[in-house]
């Protein structure tokens, strides 16, 4: 296990370097000048040139040199869109928020998904089972901007139980976490239900049942661990995606997270912010996948981490 950990951690800088190179190349290929306002008036040409020079945007090699020099000092550059902020400040203000929301929504998704999936598996073929699969289908199909807006309009608009968006108190977390969790919960419910359905017919379960354990006991204590493995695989990238924020949910519920920057930085061609945000996402993806791989071993002792995959 330690060996796996070390190897993966050593691979991380290499992966990041490749991600950086590809993103850097792409941002230079995208046409357009990030310093120009499409709706506004153009300052004189010399001013535009001066602005470009200031940000090292006049050529790709000066940009690269300036960027690497900055990164060595822990400075990921200024934002081109929000001129008074640096990329590290933007990420530092947005990442914790997105991570907390992601954590909350994942836990909710796990709770809802495992619960619904298990209910279905307890009574296979019943109304409860078919109903839960049906709800799961709905959860996967409905986009978050639909469920989010509906929940907001209902609970904050009509009933006024919850303030309209913002990130001031734990109450503000409820609706966005719920909205974010629904698609994942639906997917987890399906995985658990189908996985359990399969596991319940396997040999070790038959043995346990033969020994006299109740169906419920078998389900909770033995079968779930095995059926949980596919969910674990799903959780790795899902955690990375949830933690780095969802553009749609953050917009609807006014959450000051990192998700919106993924999209907006590209449309405003804010090269520094794009690079910073992409590198963060790549790091989290690698780390979460590593965590998932380590967790695998604990869940199913049959898996040998040291063995080549």
């Amino acid at each position, binding site marked *: 296990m330690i060996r796996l950990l070390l190897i993966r951690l050593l691979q991380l800088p290499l992966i990041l370097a490749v991600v950086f190179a590809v993103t850097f190349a792409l941002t230079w290929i995208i046409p357009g000048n990030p310093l120009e306002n499409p709706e506004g008036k153009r*300052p004189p040409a010399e001013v535009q040139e001066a602005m470009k020079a200031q940000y090292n945007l006049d050529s790709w090699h000066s940009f690269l040199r300036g960027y690497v020099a900055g990164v060595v000092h822990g400075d990921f550059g200024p934002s081109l869109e929000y001129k008074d902020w640096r990329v590290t400040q933007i990420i530092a203000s947005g990442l914790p928020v997105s991570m907390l929301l992601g954590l909350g929504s994942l836990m*909710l998704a*796990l709770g809802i998904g495992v619960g619904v999936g298990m209910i279905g598996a307890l009574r296979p073929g019943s109304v409860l089972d078919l109903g839960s699969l049906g709800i799961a289908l709905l959860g996967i199909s409905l986009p978050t901007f639909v469920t989010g807006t509906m929940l907001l309009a209902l609970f904050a608009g009509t009933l006024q139980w919850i303030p309209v*968006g913002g990130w001031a108190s734990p109450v503000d977390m409820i609706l966005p976490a719920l909205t974010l969790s629904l698609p994942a919960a639906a997917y987890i419910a399906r995985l658990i239900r189908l996985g359990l359905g399969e596991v319940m017919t396997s040999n070790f379960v038959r043995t346990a049942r033969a020994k006299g354990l109740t169906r419920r006991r078998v389900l909770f204590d033995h079968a779930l661990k095995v059926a949980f493995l596919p969910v674990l695989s799903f959780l790795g990238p899902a955690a990375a995606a949830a933690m780095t924020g969802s553009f749609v949910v953050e917009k609807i519920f006014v959450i000051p997270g990192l998700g919106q920057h993924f999209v907006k930085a590209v449309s405003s061609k804010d090269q520094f912010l794009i690079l910073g945000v992409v590198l963060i996402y790549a790091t989290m993806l690698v780390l979460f996948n590593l965590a998932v791989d380590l967790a695998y071993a604990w869940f199913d002792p049959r898996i040998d981490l040291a063995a080549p995959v």
Partner: protein
Amino acid sequence: MALMTSSLLISSSLPFVVVGAGAVDSVTSTTDLTELERVTRLDVLPDIAEDHRVRLTILYLLLLCTAPVLVWLTGSDQRRADFTWAVGTEPNTLDPQRMSWLKDIRLAECLFEPLVRMRMPDMIPEPAAARAWTVSNDGLTYTFSLRDNARWSNGDAVRASDFVYAWRRAMLPDSSADYIGLMHCIEGAKAFFHFRTEQVTAYRKGSTHSASAAARLHEATVAHFDQTVGVRAIDDHTLCVQLVRRTPYFIELCAFATFMPVHAASHRRFVEPDPGTGMLKTDTQWIKPDHLVSNGPYRLARWRFKRDILLVANTDYWNAADVGPRTIVQRIIESPATQWLSFRGGEVDWLPELPSTSTMVADLVAEGRDTVHVIPGAGTYFYNFNCKPYFTDGRENPLADPRVRRALSMAVDRSTLVTKVTRLGQPIARTFVPVDVLPGYSAPTDAGLVFDLANAKRLLAEAGHADGRGLEGLAIMYNTGAGHERIAQAIKAMWQEHLGVSVTLEGVEGRRFSDRLKNQDYAIARAGWFGDYRDPTTFLDKFLAENGNNDAAWSNPAFDAMLAEAAMTAEVPARIALLEQAEALMLDEQPIMPLFHYVSVHVFDAKRVRNLWPNAWHLRRLERVQISR
């Protein structure tokens, strides 16, 4: 922030501790049994399973509660401010010399006080940081006497040198001020910019690159400024400005953000010449709440990225007694629907920037609510025609013929556009300068075009394009994501139906759109333009041949001559008449097709929120607002 990260780290490592402990226990308790015994030990298995279950449940609950607990711990004071408004985007910058967005200027007016401010609601310039000023007979020399009791928020007196420092900043290429053009009326400003540009270019190409060399370069720049530019601090409370030519609107310009002062002594600490490029590098921390020194009615108390900005009444402001709301909060709410819900729920007092292109907003306006106010703006929505003889790909450009442009313009039914497409009922535009927004200037509507199909067809035939022949392959280009598609589709349909001209629609992403517009890589392109100051030249200068914003690449020497003559004319009526004639000349040739004049949609309860005085020029005195609950 540190608390949150460390708590997050601790709570995320806890699971591994719990799980690890569980894993170890289950292994040691069963290794000493044989295979058969292990399988048949019914009493052992349930215990292990129960331990697992308990541990897993604890782990799960821990993770579930981490987020809400941390949010609760780091949540901040949610006391309602005296006056709250919501906008859709985070400030681009709060640096007064660098800003150009209206939403930023709105905040700058609260933080900084320029020499003069516009008195509302009559929109007359009145003394602000300056208590009085005199103008020489030739209109070229302005002498401002600053108030003796004007103070910065750290107690320092507001000095003339603070204005000199700020205005010099605006004229430096190092600051890349969007509105540097406004400074060009000051003697020596344009030349100073070129001087510095050459200086810096020479430095970059040169061999000596060191901190001391860059510092010396800057000193030379400042000395050059003092010698050649017409902005001087005669003493601590007297500022003298020398203009290039008579500029009737100069006093109003002094109220603009670019002309606001900056506390030189504290700002200097954040500026350093960069040894590599020779240019001044400014640490943007100077504009943050911890460091910003302001002389306006408010000071910056808190600025949370993409969340909110808190302004608190500045006790050192010379007119602090007259300030209404003691605290102001600007919230960032991107989605217009959420903005509306916040207003309805009473969380926000004013929505100044509901996007007029949103269908939700059009619905709100159509419902006729008394909290939704539609205010005509000093801006025009129009289409550019490429007036160059050839397109960038070498094809001949049929739009170079003014008759074709006029015909196309006459075939657009503008009233359908504003009633059925945008549904906001904007004023139809026949001229480029909006009607009724400039006192004393009558926009030449007679020279503009009306919906006239007969004449349109005739003109088109005259130009040799009857029934749209020879006009294939034209495209209407617009920037995506800002609601321009519907208008473009409507116009495309109108041209097809009435003239037989078939165009395609080309939605282009924002930054790319700007590029192509600038280089005339288009046939017809959508555009908008707002006036910056209350003089017709803010609209008409755009059509000068050498103007960087002349996207249509239209040039008419007679037009340029008229504008030049107007610049030399002292007498107001004669000058205005010249400008009106110039606009009429431009409209005759239709390098652009004006469609409608902008409106802005404001949401507020006029019974509760008084003294907002919404107007076409977005002039405000927010410290005068009165809110009753």
